[in-house]
């Protein structure tokens, strides 16, 4: 589904992403782990089109998408959630998700239509909200939600754009253990419908969910394999697991 060829991002002398080749196969949940500053989020920025690479290419569903901007990437089927909650704070939860669903329609330049009257949009919105257990909060302003619910809303927005590939950037960031558990359940359910690339620090979560793991350090891929293989890998132990216990 997604393949990069020596994807590179330099910031001056610093190489944040260094000749990365990864392949994400259809239907897998592919985790990317590594210490802070390993270049994981920068890699996501390149994949989602938020930043342009300094070198290398990105192939998505057989097409070279390297030069597409973030909006075009979204329409090509790459959906992304963010490490720092990135929602529309003063709009209602419902409106947050409806906007995402609306972005897939041709209705957005309809000036004389009523957004709230569109049955099709409302149904898609309700389905996404229901999936993340947010229906009860639909009419509240997004910024009034508790942190855990905001993280779920973040995911609901991304899912409502109907992507083929989900890039999830530390979805459990800042969550209580209970909320993290709720989230793991959600991601497990999503994995049956979407191909997912997941950046995560929560090791039990990663080891439990991922089919494949890529380990990064200093911008490079230092290991790749199944959870068992990664657990046994000496490089990884030294670079990552060893330092974190």
């Amino acid at each position, binding site marked *: 589904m997604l393949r990069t060829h020596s994807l590179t991002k330099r910031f001056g002398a610093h190489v944040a992403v260094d000749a990365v080749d990864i392949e994400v196969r259809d239907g897998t949940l592919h985790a990317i782990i590594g210490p802070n500053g390993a270049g994981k989020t920068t890699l996501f920025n390149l994949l*989602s089109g*938020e930043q342009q690479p300094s070198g290398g290419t990105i192939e998505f569903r057989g097409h070279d998408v390297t030069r597409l901007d*973030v*909006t075009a990437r*979204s*329409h090509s089927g790459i959906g*992304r959630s963010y490490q720092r909650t*990135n*929602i*529309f*704070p*003063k*709009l209602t939860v419902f*409106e947050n998700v*409806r*906007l*995402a669903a*609306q*972005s*897939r*329609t041709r*209705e*957005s*330049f*309809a*000036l*004389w*239509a*009523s*957004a*709230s009257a*569109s049955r099709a*949009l409302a149904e898609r919105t309700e389905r996404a909200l229901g999936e993340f257990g947010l229906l009860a909060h639909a009419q509240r302003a997004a910024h009034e939600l508790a942190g855990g619910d905001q993280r779920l809303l973040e995911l609901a*927005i*991304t899912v409502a*754009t109907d992507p083929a590939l989900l890039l999830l950037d530390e979805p459990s960031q800042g969550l209580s253990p209970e909320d993290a558990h709720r989230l793991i359940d959600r991601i497990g359910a999503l994995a049956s419908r979407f191909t997912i690339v997941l950046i995560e620090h929560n090791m039990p979560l990663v080891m439990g969910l991922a089919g494949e793991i890529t380990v990064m350090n200093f911008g490079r891929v230092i290991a790749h394999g199944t959870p068992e293989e990664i657990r046994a890998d000496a490089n990884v132990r030294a670079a990552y697991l060893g330092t974190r216990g």
Partner: protein
Amino acid sequence: MRRFAVLVVVVALAPFVVRYPTLETQILTFGLLAVAFNVLLGEMGFLSFGQATFNGVGAYAAARVLIDLHAPLLLALGAGIAAGALVAAAIGALAITGRGVYGVMLTFAFNEMAYYLAFQWRDVTGGDNGLRGIPRPDVFGISLDDATRYYLFTATVVLVAFAFVLRLIDSPFGAVLRAIRENEDRARAIGFRVRRFKIVAFAISGGLSGLAGALYAGLFRFVPLQSIDLDTSTNIVVATLLGGTGSPYGPLLGAAVFTILSNSLSHVWSHWPLLFGVVFCIVVLFFRGGLWSISGLWNRRATHA
């Protein structure tokens, strides 16, 4: 819907209750300017400090069409809308490339340029003497040669424009504008061509401002150079903030209060802006939602009682 019905009744009865149709027409045209401005500020979150540009361009365009072509009045209004929309789309396309305060300064700078252009181009605009001798033709055989009749004509047009803005805000397009206001980067990331939406919003705001200018030109049969100056742009910002940006009713209310105060106080005391400044500061500091939010609080209390 009920609020709009109340507005229609108030606007329809106003000149028969308080017999100042000319002042009341001015309230409506200035109100439309504030409502148009607030499409950008309140909905999209862009502070356009050069709204008088679109007002002036619309007024001159309508006036030229009336003088040179003896065109029907509705066609002249159309010319005002088209001119305002085109100029706003062009200025908007350039202004939105500047982020934050730089975009604001660009609208300001273009307003200044438009003003000097109007000042210099005497053949078209009359320069600082203003553009005189604008005819006010009949509409559908009905003479508008009477202040109250012209008020009713203006009221009809402004209410239609206001209804359009209400629909716009409720539309999918309006939702995208709010998404841009709240989080432009995420709007882009979920697949909206933000730049396109902004330019269309500018065109709409400019078109409505041009319409207001055209109605004003018809009111006084005269376009003063002030219709395109920075003072007018400032007044639009002030009236809108006074009324509140959270709903199109806010700018309308703000424009009414502003116009009434400036007309009544300026006769009593030439330094009236000083007093107005105090009122403005109080509203902006203590009632962030403007006068309309105060009326909202009162409404809520009234319904709870």
